[in-house]
């Protein structure tokens, strides 16, 4: 199984350890993983700001980098959702379609494609999951609280395989953290307030380590946590699943 590793721009630049953990995790499960060196960004920052028409070159680059793989996997639900919903290339639409239909967020790839039922990870901490909206409501990696349907959560299923780990139950299970791409600066006041409220829910319920499948939300929450000097550590779920 040839897997193309897509490490979003901000993870590449600010959180290399998340990329490393993702890579090692996939390799532990026997995937043949490659990281195309010429990748940059999925184009979502432009598209969500109303400039989808400026994403053509990013799209072309993405198709060039990833069309040869059986699967494309990324530690970011939001970027994956953007590719799934919006990646097109009028000259190579067939390859773009292959990319759109074979890209996976890490936890859904582990549960749905690799069908992981066991992990060897050990992480003796109280862990609170930030359920990111695009992963949850867009990719359906977990049931959303609005729907009258049985609950499930792919990230939590995986975290429950980690020995020593205790999952924290939150008051509001799936409220948005307020990151929202360029929203976090365009609507700074509301964005920060939402971040504070999300973090407070974790503090109140005893989270030691805050985790999730979307580093962008975690980057925003980490910014709030560090400014307010709260005793919570932020780690991407790949780092926890890869912990020994």
């Amino acid at each position, binding site marked *: 199984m040839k897997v193309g590793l897509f490490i979003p*721009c*901000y993870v*590449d*630049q*600010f959180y*290399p350890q998340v*990329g*490393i953990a993702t890579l090692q995790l996939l390799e532990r499960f026997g995937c043949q993983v*490659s*990281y195309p*060196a010429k*990748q*940059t*960004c999925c184009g979502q920052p*432009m*598209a*969500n*700001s*109303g*400039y989808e*028409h*400026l*994403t053509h*070159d*990013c799209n072309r*680059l993405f198709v060039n980098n990833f069309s040869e793989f059986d699967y494309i996997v990324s530690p970011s639900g939001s970027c994956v959702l953007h590719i799934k919903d919006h990646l097109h290339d009028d000259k190579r639409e067939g390859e773009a379609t292959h990319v759109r239909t074979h890209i996976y967020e890490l936890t859904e790839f582990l549960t749905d494609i690799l069908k992981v039922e066991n992990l060897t990870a050990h992480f003796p901490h109280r862990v609170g999951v930030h359920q990111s*909206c*695009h992963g949850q*409501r*867009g990719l359906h990696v977990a049931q*959303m*609280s*609005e*729907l*009258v349907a049985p609950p499930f959560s792919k990230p939590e299923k995986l975290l429950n395989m980690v020995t020593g780990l205790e999952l924290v139950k939150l008051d*509001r299970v799936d*409220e*948005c953290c307020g990151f*929202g*791409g360029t*929203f*976090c*600066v*365009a*609507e*700074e*006041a*509301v*964005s*920060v*307030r*939402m*971040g504070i*409220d999300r973090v407070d829910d974790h503090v109140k319920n005893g989270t030691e380590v805050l985790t999730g499948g979307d580093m962008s939300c975690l980057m*925003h929450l*980490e*910014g*709030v946590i*560090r*400014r307010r000097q709260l005793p919570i550590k932020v780690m991407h779920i790949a780092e926890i699943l890869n912990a020994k």
Partner: protein
Amino acid sequence: MNHADAAEKFNKDFDRTTWHDETLWWVRQKRDRAAFAIPEWEQLRETASQIKHNVLSNLDNYLIEFEKNAQKNGITVHWAADAHEHNQIILSILKSQGVTEIVKSKSMLTEECHLNPYLTENGVEVIDTDLGERIVQLADEPPSHIVLPCIHWKKEEIGVLFHKHLGTPEGCADPVLLTHAARANLREKFLTRRVAITGVNFAVAETGEFVVCTNEGNADMGAHLADVHIACMGIEKIIPKREHLGVFLRLLTRSATGQPITTYSSHFGKPREGQQMHIVLVDNGRTVQLGREQFRNSLKCIRCGACMNTCPVYRRSGGHSYHNAVAGPIGAILAPNLDMTKNADLPFASTLCGSCSNVCPVKINIHEQLYEWRQELTKSGHSPTAKTLSMKVMSAVLSNPTVYHLSGKIGRFAMANAPFVVNNSFNPWFKQREMPEPPKESFGEWYKKNRGEK
């Protein structure tokens, strides 16, 4: 004031923002309990959505059918192309009756058409009879929520307002006493006003009747006591058959307030003897929206307000920050249709979290339409030039791997060695959040070093 500025102002009072958020979240939780008590809830949503889909595909026929049947029932039917025509029609009915005082129960359409200021300017006194609407009317401000118009007011503040306008004892904030005062005041209006205006929740094409839902019975009080009943409805409120009411009435209040059913769902079929009944069918941009395929679904809205209660942005910015009669996520997709220049900011007042679409009882893809509006507004030149410029730069950098890697390296170097470049007051991220700590090497650099060129 645009949404971001108004929301920032709202957020200055931290505790009040907490209170606003918690109050509306409490309503969202009530909605959840009411929805989860119905095993076939998702099927109901789908059914409602499909009925509305049918309505929107055959809107002209259903409206003509409704008009024919309503006229047969003795109701006078008026057609208004826009807000101004709607207001003129109402004024002309009042003039023909020689009436200068009226009662009005809650109607978001009349808010959308700015009927109250229009009538006031033309010498008509309008008394809103919904308690929440009455409160904001006394305070001389618009409603902040379509179902809970004064949800942003605390009972102590209402006490002060009622002391000033209704003569309640100073310092009285007891909801029972305040409600009694409002009731006594409104009773006199109900008994003396000869014309009552109501909204319309559902109009049935098959029978020519319409349904008005209130929790206070105020629409009934107005309509039953008045000589003339004028009902105002947006043309999208039509449903084909009476049997469809069962679907919508089950969904409406559960979604709105978590109640199993509205306290009063009043069916108006024909005028009683000696009474006049008018209905004004208003377009006001709805056929334009019907013609915009990607936004057509927004006309399915039954005005339950569930998207507002669930919206984490609405809960922390308040209804007035949306500067439109209909606030929140649904308002943000309806408002640009009415005025793209004035409302270009609203589709950006969202994180696109998608909660609104999943809570919506008629399954409007609200967050997808917000995304689509962003594209439309940008393409039609409703974006600030500076933003367009920065997006072009961003696009150029991100579509060129060499430039991207170099920019990343320079950026991280600057953040590590000259943090003041980013950690300053010009950076909205840094205002209340720390910047990420730049690592020595990017993942790409680590990979090249540790895994070689593959």
